[in-house]
């Protein structure tokens, strides 16, 4: 249907060119050549997602090569043409080398610089290029000895290129290009080498521009450097963007607009750059998918969904292999994220990696899958060492993985996501995906994204499957289905490595559980043994040695902070599903719950960092639900965020001063009182905050929060990643605040610490409050241990 339309359009263009007068012939030739460059650029920009602001360089190489060969060396044009095109293509592949290593504005710079280098070589290499005067010659190609014939040839070329683009998008290479554009990380994890794919895209794209350049010379009979100015590169980009990057007809529509519009609107001709600049802005604002995208949306092609079959599928036998990590470790800027981690994942078994937030679990997965290069240690799969290899090589060695935030190829359909990894629809049946095969992966509901990602990982026929928090954000029922699925994957002979916070899932299906804390393995063994291990309980629940302070008389009774039926989250599925709680004046309230229960989301929503979807938040009698964070804070509600988040490049003093940013008065006296409260900060006052230890940073973060003289202080995971001795200091500091009758809402994984301090507590699980009451009551019931370690 679409193809038929294109064929008609090309036939009409050829007919028009065959009959039109010489003015139209020249325009149609320009149109054909511009479209040809556009189609080539579309491979780079549209399919692979790499911008080039230097494409005129390739166009110039094509034109000058043809000119030099036919005029100076008297070659036949048909011999010169392939040389010109190949030279441009080879230059493209060469330019890809530096371009590979950079992205975004850096890549734009490389391509711009390239364009300028070529333009200036054309100016300065006078002996060959004729300098500013260029090369003049009327060596018309055999068979194409009229302008009309060249114009028709240009249109035929554009048609051929369109067809080529169509074919390319249907091949594995085309799919791989789109995969690289959507998610380079995911592309690597299914064994695609982004370097080769981008190089190919650069070469194809440059080749097309080279062909167009050669024909441009044949058409006009001269080349001068001024034809190949920077602004021409911008016009080429414009052709692709206006039409619609990535779409088949996009560059044709774009070229038509860019070439024809100024010709038909004579008044516009002079102002064409002005007009194109404005047009590009408008297109970017209103129609990021270009003209073709808008038309497609308006047409709203309804198609019947093609559902994944509900068949009973079993996985084939994988290459069985053991994954072994021996004493691997990595440090980032001196901070040890993982040290001496050893683990072994056997074929057919589920090995889970658990630990509190910030324990280094994802870091270990990143090392196992080749995204991080370990500083020390060895990683072996089936006896082959893979540490330090590129991620795509590790993937080919048989290690597949999924991600905390799913990394599907969003613009590709579910079926395409599977096909590019080498798998068919049967795998979708295997993972219980029952949805549409032709829907874009980006439009899938959350649970389906997880399933399709797992299916795609399986499509690479891995020996080992690494999963990073696959249950996060799933409903209880979906989690159970997932647990069964993981079990079936293991039963097929694959070694499954699971990082997961949901202890029901972990304890239910794991053969071995490895517990990480602060980057070190603290326990390893069967689930029941790990659950009983005192070191693990301490890591999760904190010191029980802390003396409970006991509840105080209830506060003044006035509710200070009221959260009502709050729903909030980041994607389709809300993290908080109707949370209600209140904090009274002079009260210390704890919110407890396992990782991923929604504690930090709650804190972000209250402080205004995250806008709630539903429900309300009132503070001091005022509705603050919709206020942005910078307007919530001056009202006296101050959050000390998770992970401390001090400003690492600023000194301790400047961090403290920023805490008082919204206070009009002099904060000097308060800084002095903070240094008395946290004496260890005094010696560090003029050091960069990033150089402080974790404990000192936490003290600084609290001090910075107190500088605002908060009426209500929110503390998010203050004990996260701190050593036990430091936690005692922290406890003392919080106890002092409590004694000063500060109003505090405290979130902490270390239930022991929080309950020892708090007057009241709420337990949150799966985005809902499941228990609340006096801190001592909560400590006495088993609700907490169940929520944390799935101990029944």
């Amino acid at each position, binding site marked *: 249907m679409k193809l038929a339309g294109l064929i008609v359009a090309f036939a009409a263009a050829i007919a028009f060119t065959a009959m039109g007068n010489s003015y139209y012939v020249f325009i149609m030739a320009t149109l054909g050549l511009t479209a040809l460059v556009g189609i080539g650029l579309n491979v780079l920009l549209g399919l692979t997602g790499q*911008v080039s602001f230097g494409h005129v360089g390739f166009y110039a190489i094509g034109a000058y090569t043809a000119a030099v060969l036919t005029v100076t060396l008297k070659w036949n044009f048909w011999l010169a043409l392939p040389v010109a095109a190949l030279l441009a293509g080879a230059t493209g592949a060469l*330019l890809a*080398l*530096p371009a590979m*290593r*950079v992205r*975004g*504005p*850096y890549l*734009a*710079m*490389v391509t*711009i*610089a*390239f364009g*300028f*280098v070529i333009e*200036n*070589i054309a*100016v300065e290499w006078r002996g060959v290029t004729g300098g500013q005067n260029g090369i003049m010659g009327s060596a018309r190609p055999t068979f194409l000895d009229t302008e009309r014939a060249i114009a028709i040839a240009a249109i035929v070329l554009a048609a051929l290129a369109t067809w080529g683009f169509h074919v390319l998008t249907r091949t594995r290479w085309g799919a791989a290009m789109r995969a690289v554009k959507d998610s380079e*990380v995911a592309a690597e994890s299914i064994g695609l080498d982004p370097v080769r794919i981008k190089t190919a895209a650069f070469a194809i794209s440059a080749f097309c521009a080279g062909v167009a350049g050669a024909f441009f010379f044949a058409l006009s009979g001269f080349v001068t450097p001024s034809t190949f100015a*920077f602004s021409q590169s*911008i016009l080429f980009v414009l052709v692709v*963007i206006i039409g619609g990057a990535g779409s088949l007809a996009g560059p044709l529509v774009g070229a038509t607009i860019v070439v024809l519009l100024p010709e038909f609107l004579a008044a516009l001709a002079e*102002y064409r*750059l*002005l007009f*194109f*600049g404005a047009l*590009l*802005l408008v297109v*970017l*604002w209103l129609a*990021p998918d270009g003209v073709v995208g808008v038309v497609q949306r308006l047409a709203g092609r309804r198609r019947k969904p093609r559902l994944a079959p509900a068949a009973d599928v079993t996985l084939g036998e994988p290459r069985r292999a053991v994954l072994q990590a021996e004493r691997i470790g990595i440090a*980032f800027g001196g901070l040890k994220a993982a040290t001496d981690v050893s683990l072994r994942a056997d074929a057919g078994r589920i090995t889970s990696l658990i630990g509190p937030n910030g324990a280094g679990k*994802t870091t270990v997965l990143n090392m196992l899958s080749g*995204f991080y290069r370990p500083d020390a240690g060895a990683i072996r799969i089936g006896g082959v060492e893979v540490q330090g290899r590129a991620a795509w090589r590790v993937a080919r060695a048989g290690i597949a993985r999924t*991600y905390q935030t799913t990394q599907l190829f969003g613009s590709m359909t579910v079926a395409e996501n599977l096909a590019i990894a080498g798998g068919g629809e049967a795998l979708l049946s295997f993972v219980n995906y029952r949805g549409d095969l032709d829907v874009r992966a980006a439009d899938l509901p959350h649970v389906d994204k997880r399933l399709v990602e797992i299916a795609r990982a399986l499509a690479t026929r891995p020996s080992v499957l690494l999963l990073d928090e696959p249950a996060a954000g799933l409903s209880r029922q979906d989690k159970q289905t997932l647990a069964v699925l993981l079990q079936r994957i293991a039963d097929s002979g694959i070694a499954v490595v699971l990082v997961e916070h949901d202890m029901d899932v972990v304890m239910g299906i794991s053969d071995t559980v490895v517990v990480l804390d602060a980057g070190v393995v603290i326990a390893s063994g069967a689930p029941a043994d790990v659950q009983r291990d005192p070191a693990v309980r301490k890591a999760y629940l904190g010191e029980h040695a802390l003396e409970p302070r006991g509840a105080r008389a209830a506060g003044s009774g006035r509710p200070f902070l009221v959260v009502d039926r709050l729903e909030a989250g980041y994607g389709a599925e809300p993290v908080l599903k109707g949370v209600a709680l209140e904090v009274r004046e002079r009260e210390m309230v704890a919110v407890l719950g396992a990782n991923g229960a929604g504690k930090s989301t709650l804190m972000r929503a209250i*402080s205004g*960092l995250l806008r709630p979807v539903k429900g309300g938040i009132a503070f001091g009698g005022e509705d603050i639900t919709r206020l*942005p*964070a*910078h*307007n919530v*804070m001056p009202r006296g509600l101050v*959050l000390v*965020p998770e992970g401390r*988040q*001090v*400003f*690492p*490049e*600023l000194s301790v003093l*400047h961090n403290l*001063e*920023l*805490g008082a*940013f*919204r206070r009009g008065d002099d904060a000097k006296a308060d800084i002095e009182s903070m240094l008395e409260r946290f004496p260890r900060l005094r010696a560090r006052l003029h050091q960069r905050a990033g150089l402080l230890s974790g404990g000192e940073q936490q003290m600084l973060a609290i001090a910075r929060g107190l500088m*605002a003289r908060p009426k209500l202080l929110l503390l998010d995971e203050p004990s996260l990643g701190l050593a036990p001795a430091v936690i005692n200091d922290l406890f003392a500091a919080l106890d002092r605040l409590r004694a000063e009758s500060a109003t505090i809402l405290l979130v902490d994984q270390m239930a022991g610490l929080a309950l020892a301090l708090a007057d009241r507590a709420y337990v949150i699980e799966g985005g809902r409050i499941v228990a609340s009451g006096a801190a001592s009551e909560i400590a006495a019931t088993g609700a907490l241990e169940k929520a944390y370690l799935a101990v029944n």
Partner: protein
Amino acid sequence: MIGSALVSGLGLGSMYGLIALGFYVTYAVSSTVNFAQGSSMMLGAVFAYTFAVKFGWHFVPAAAMSLVLCALYGLLVEIVAVRPFARRGSNAWLMATVALGIVADNTVLFTFGREPRGFVLPWASEGLMVLGIHVSKMQLAIPAFGLGLAALLHWFARGTKYGKAMLAVVQNADAARLMGINVPLAIMAAYAVSTAFAGAAGIMIAPLFNVHSDMGTLFGLKAFAVAILGGLTSAWGVMLAGLLFGIVESLITAFLGSSYTQILTFTLVIVALAIMPNGLFGRAELKKV
């Protein structure tokens, strides 16, 4: 010859550095840049010419007024070409700022005129002998002014409350919001400063070159190369890269002739980025998955 090449290299380099600092300021706060900084520079020169020559104002108020207008143009860039895209997480700001630059250049082309205008400041071309080298006052004023502005930026960032707030936004936008800092406002301010810096460079350069609508293109691109080489993450790195770039360019011109300047400098840019993808003074960013 080396002496005069160094002097003119320092002058050019400090201007590249100044425009590049404009890239740095916005990139640091928002991870976006106005790709058409050259247009901001050109606007500075055109405004200053209009006020000083056409309207006959004294140079100082003319320059001050130009800077104000450039800053306003910076706000326009942020609102029109950056914010709508940054908000939806798209990197189309890159092309949108290019588009806005094209609009600005061509608007000037049709209002200001096609012909290059000479911006003659009698005091600026007076000569001096410094260490046996003949230099014009302007050639001395430019690096002094460029480095002065860079120092001013440094003082503002380190020594004032609002400067520190900007640095806080750079380092952790969420934490900055929790300090009560209005992040969108900080980004707008960064854009205003950024274009004002480029405008200042335009005003300084105008007396040495002619004023016309696309005088900024090449300057802006070279300044971008400088910013990239400087690593976009360090203000001093950017300024230093600017001076280096200017000196290298002048030396190439002096010893190999002007024909090779563009070819060699841009080739050096490509090679430098191929070897050091984060620039000469930039830090590697950690890839997170």
